[in-house]
């Protein structure tokens, strides 16, 4: 497909001037017509080759997979229609929990991450302990494997039997996710803050804005805008990792699949749950692409009145 696209794009651009849109009596020369004929022919040939090659590749892949030894068993264990039908509604029901976790944790992560990032950029001796704490927090939680974090919080905290502390695996799982992802997102924000050129801060300060105002009105808006694509990337990642709260027994999409798989010794429910997560992240990824390209366009167009 890429091959065809590459070949056809320049031709489209060339075609524009053909009908004398400039209105200056321009008639395409025979040389140009001949050149365009040749390019069209080349495009047709490229399309035909791409189609044929795709067909052949697809057929070969199909034959290799289907005729492979063990395909019959693989099909029964992973792609069983009956189990898929049974698992799908339960997995979807569980997925609603993942979505809610994503929304709540996502919001908490953005707020906490921003606070930590700003704490790391504060100047002045009063803030020294705050700076150190923020740096230690990001170092620790970025290095700590999420699964260990989850086990400590979801399984370990209830074992303390503390009064007034929840034992709800969803709340605890959400807390663990927020702890880890805040550290990632804080680093994204901090990178954004540092990417704003010092001359911007100098300009703000020379207008009489104090440090806090310069940060709020000049540095942070530019930092956040620049970091939207990596932030959305982290949110996609968070969306998948909400599945890990199932280790505490919360019935999310993963746990729902696990229950059926454990009972039937058939792994189709896992495939279903996996595909459901993929289906959920694809719109998010496309949204990320769309936001990024829209930002680029806006920068290019500016918005003159």
């Amino acid at each position, binding site marked *: 497909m890429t091959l065809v696209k590459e070949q056809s794009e320049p031709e489209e651009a060339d075609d524009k001037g053909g009908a004398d849109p400039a209105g200056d009596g321009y008639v395409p020369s025979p040389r140009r017509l001949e050149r365009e004929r040749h390019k069209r022919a080349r495009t047709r040939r490229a399309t035909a080759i791409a189609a044929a090659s795709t067909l052949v590749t697809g057929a070969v892949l199909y034959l290799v997979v289907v005729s492979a030894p063990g395909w019959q068993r693989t099909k029964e264990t992973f792609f069983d229609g009956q189990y898929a039908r049974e698992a799908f509604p339960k997995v979807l029901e569980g997925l609603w929990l993942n979505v809610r976790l994503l929304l709540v944790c996502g919001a908490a992560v953005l707020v906490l991450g921003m606070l930590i990032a700003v704490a790391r950029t504060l100047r002045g001796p009063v803030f020294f302990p705050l700076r150190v704490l923020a740096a230690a927090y990001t170092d620790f939680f970025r290095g700590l494997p999420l699964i260990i974090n989850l086990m400590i919080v979801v399984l370990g905290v209830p074992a303390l039997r503390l009064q007034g502390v929840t034992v709800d695996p969803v709340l605890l799982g959400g807390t663990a996710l927020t702890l880890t992802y805040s550290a990632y997102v804080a680093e994204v924000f901090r990178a954004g803050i540092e990417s704003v050129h010092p*001359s*911007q801060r*100098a*300009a*703000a*300060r*020379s*207008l*009489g*804005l*104090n440090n806090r*105002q310069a940060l709020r*009105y*000049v540095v942070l*808006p*530019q930092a956040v*805008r620049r970091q939207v694509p990596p932030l959305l990337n982290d949110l996609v990642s968070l969306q998948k990792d909400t599945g890990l709260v199932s280790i505490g027994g919360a019935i999310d999409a993963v746990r729902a699949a696990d229950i059926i798989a454990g009972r039937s010794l058939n792994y189709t429910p896992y495939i279903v749950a996996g595909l459901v997560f993929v289906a959920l992240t694809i719109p998010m990824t496309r949204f990320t692409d769309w936001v990024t390209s829209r930002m680029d366009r806006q*920068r290019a*167009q*500016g*918005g*003159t*009145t």
Partner: protein
Amino acid sequence: MSDVPVSPGGLPVLRMEAVRKTFGDAVVLRDVDLEVAPHTVTALIGASGSGKSTLLRCANLLEDVDDGAIWLDGEEITDPRADPDAVRRRIGVVFQAYNLFPHMTVLENITLAPRRVHGVARADAEEHARELLERLGLGGKAGAYPDRLSGGQQQRVAIVRALAVRPRLLLLDEITAALDPELVGEVLNVVRDLKGDGMTMVLATHEMGFAREVADQVCFLDEGVVLEHGTPEQVFGDPRQERTRRFLRRIVEAGRL
């Protein structure tokens, strides 16, 4: 412009005494004395690296001086107890690279400081901004983002932004150095107008012809020392120092005077 404040009792707006500034081993300013009278234009000339920009940054407290003192309207601003934000509120700065805020429209760039620092109501700040834009021939650009403007337009917006807080003193740091030659004139015209309005200005510049025309006082800096200062006629017409003569000769050879 018409809002230039009247100076109290004829004190110099800006006074520097024995200012010294080093970056590591490099002495950038050495015993610099300077006096800027109200409603006058002071041009700082000299080769790149002679300390012109550093002098301006020190005057605006973007850099701390190592030694010596600076007064703004008779008040010592290098006193560590002075509030740097309060000092900067009275000084407008225009930078070589414009330094407009790219995420804000022209109007937002200009009204940011009046609204957030000086507490001017949004409507009043915008009205004043539009007036200034109109005067500088940028009436149609209020809603545009900086990257849609030419360099000359951006620099004029930067000047409006500096003027919007009604500063006592305007510091211009090589404001035409980043511009295409055909755009230099439009920016210099603005400075001429400001001089006509009585704005007190200190400008670092490589435009010798312009310095000669608008400046009341010219300071020639050489390796961090004010080697020569006086009227433009004296410094350009009859320089006392050999180094000044050599510098000016090179400028003439480069076709810049």
